[in-house]
């Protein structure tokens, strides 16, 4: 009820901030941070406390004057994921809090870890500090920690000139005319499409080409969610189609049907581009589309 005159905003604040002395031990740690080094202090029993304290929490004894550089990398012991950062948090995007045991330390440092999402966090993961641009001697001189580099992105691109000769040329010349050419192995009694020179089973030369129908049955299929320049949209379906009268399925796109309706045994027919646009390329067949015939029982 902001309009209620009896409700007031009240702020508790120390103008300019509250000045605190650090003492020699915390002061040394913060001074080293300003120089972008992380140090721990050794206890009388030989443990390294990071961040340093003046007294060993286990024994109550004063720590030794021995400071030792630790990290900069460390191992996450436990963590929590903040999906909605508060104004007071070190990062303004989703991040993790973590207890980080820096290399060489016997205790864990609490700080923020910048990770892409909660799934990127795990106990045991390695993290490295990311320093603020202008260290001043404050725990926030470490802006945050970031996961160890475990992968990079490699760009791969090479260009080739491909030429269809032999059986592929014969097949594509057929496609240019709007027909699918097959070959038969007399010994194996199998019909192969696309046309090929030799039977892949027995090695015998196949006889003359002949046309097979551009209708067939889906034997299996995959729903693809990664874009492909040959596909109209994502998701798209690529399928094995057993063309009628042939024995070996051919791979092709399926179209004109929602991906979730595609099924094994579905009857399909090639959708050709208009004759005026045809070339000696498989692009002549846009995709295969359902014919509406009853499904076929696959053997």
């Amino acid at each position, binding site marked *: 009820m902001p309009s209620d005159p*009896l409700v007031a905003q*009240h*702020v*508790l604040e120390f103008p300019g901030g*509250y000045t*605190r002395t*650090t003492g020699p031990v*915390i002061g040394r740690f*913060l001074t080293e941070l300003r120089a972008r080094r992380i140090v721990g202090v050794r206890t009388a029993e030989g443990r390294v*406390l*990071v*961040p340093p*304290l003046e007294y060993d*929490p286990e024994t109550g004894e004063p720590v030794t004057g021995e400071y030792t550089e630790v990290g900069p990398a460390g191992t996450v*012991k*436990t*963590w*929590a*994921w*903040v*999906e909605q950062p*508060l*104004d*007071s*948090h*070190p990062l303004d995007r989703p991040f993790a*809090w*973590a*207890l*980080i*045991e820096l290399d060489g330390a016997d*205790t*864990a*440092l*609490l*700080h*923020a870890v910048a990770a892409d999402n*909660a799934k990127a966090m795990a106990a045991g993961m390695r993290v490295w500090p990311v320093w603020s641009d202008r260290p001043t001697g*404050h*725990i*926030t001189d470490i802006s945050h920690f970031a996961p160890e580099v475990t992968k990079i992105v490699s760009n791969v691109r090479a260009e080739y000139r491909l030429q269809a000769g032999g059986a592929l040329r014969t097949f594509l010349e057929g496609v240019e005319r709007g027909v699918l050419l097959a070959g038969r192995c007399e010994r194996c009694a199998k019909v192969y499409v696309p046309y090929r020179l030799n039977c892949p089973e027995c090695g015998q030369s196949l006889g003359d080409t002949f046309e097979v129908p551009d209708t067939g049955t889906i034997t299996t299929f995959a729903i693809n969610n990664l874009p492909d320049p040959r596909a109209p949209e994502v998701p798209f379906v690529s399928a094995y189609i057993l063309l009628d009268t042939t024995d070996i399925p051919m791979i092709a796109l399926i179209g004109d049907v929602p991906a979730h309706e595609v099924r094994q045994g579905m009857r399909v027919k090639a959708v050709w581009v208009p004759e005026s646009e045809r070339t000696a390329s498989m692009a002549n067949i846009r995709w295969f589309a359902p014919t509406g015939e009853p499904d076929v029982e696959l053997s």
Partner: protein
Amino acid sequence: MRDVAIVAFAQTRHTDHDTGLTEPELIAPVINEIKERTGLRRFGFTCSGSCDYLAGAPFSFVSALDALAAWPPISESHVEMDGAWALYEAWVRLQHGDIDSALVYGFGKSSLGDLRTIMTLQLDPYYLAPLGLDQLSYAALQANAVGADRAELDEIVRRSRADGRGNPYALDLPEPDGEDFAVQPLKKTDVPPITDGAAAIVLATGDLATRLCATPAYIRGIAHRTEPHYLGLRDLSGSASAADAARAAGVGKAPVEVAELHAQFPHEEIILRRALELGGGTLINPSGGPLAANPVMATGLIRIGEAARHIHDGRARRTVAHAASGPCLQQNLVTVLEA
């Protein structure tokens, strides 16, 4: 040791919002109720627990004395901790032997500010507070370290809220619903409700105890222990200090019928059951516990009062109360009560 007993306990009907009452106005009905029930108008010692940061006003606990009738001058003290620690101080004071009664109270209005970030102000100012580490964030770190089964955690929240609905002083919270995280792995339903409230207890020794109460709840053991403040120095998956306090208070010397645990989050209940070695025969937080009403700075004292109430009512002969303070159960106070 002198036998000290809890002879009376009173609490407000806690609210999930600011009713506009001042702190003295919040406390006064509870103090008046406990004075009427015991017939005592003056006490040998008075001690309270509260936190000025909740109201954002320095020395706000001083004005709370207006609820007490503090003139002519009374012997009085205050702890900037949960009222449970005020009870500890009163118990120590009663051991001196020169007085036979004490009034203890705790109060807090966590509705006035943002409790989650106000709790940042209790943290070490060099290493933790500057990071803006908040109450739900450090609780989530501990929840992950415990790694408890989600179904077990959900059941603790469900049971606590159901028990709270049966407790006229606790809040009426619905069956927990929703999977949203507050800070992963802490779910929003794992977070205790913002609550305003107060509670008071009267301690008495010797003949006075039996005169004031037919069934006094005698403090047979009381101990508190602390751990390092900095979270990186501790094993957050357990609570060594709660276990030490429980041993020192003698929790395991006999079966425990009821335990009231200051577990603000469900994973804290799991830690505390293990630390106090409470088995299946112990009823945990039949009041609903902090997940059903969490008037900060009174929540721990209410655990002691609820544990005593079972003995006052004759429903139990041996109960245990636990109170906690600091981030991730840093400090733990365990009280063993017997008929």
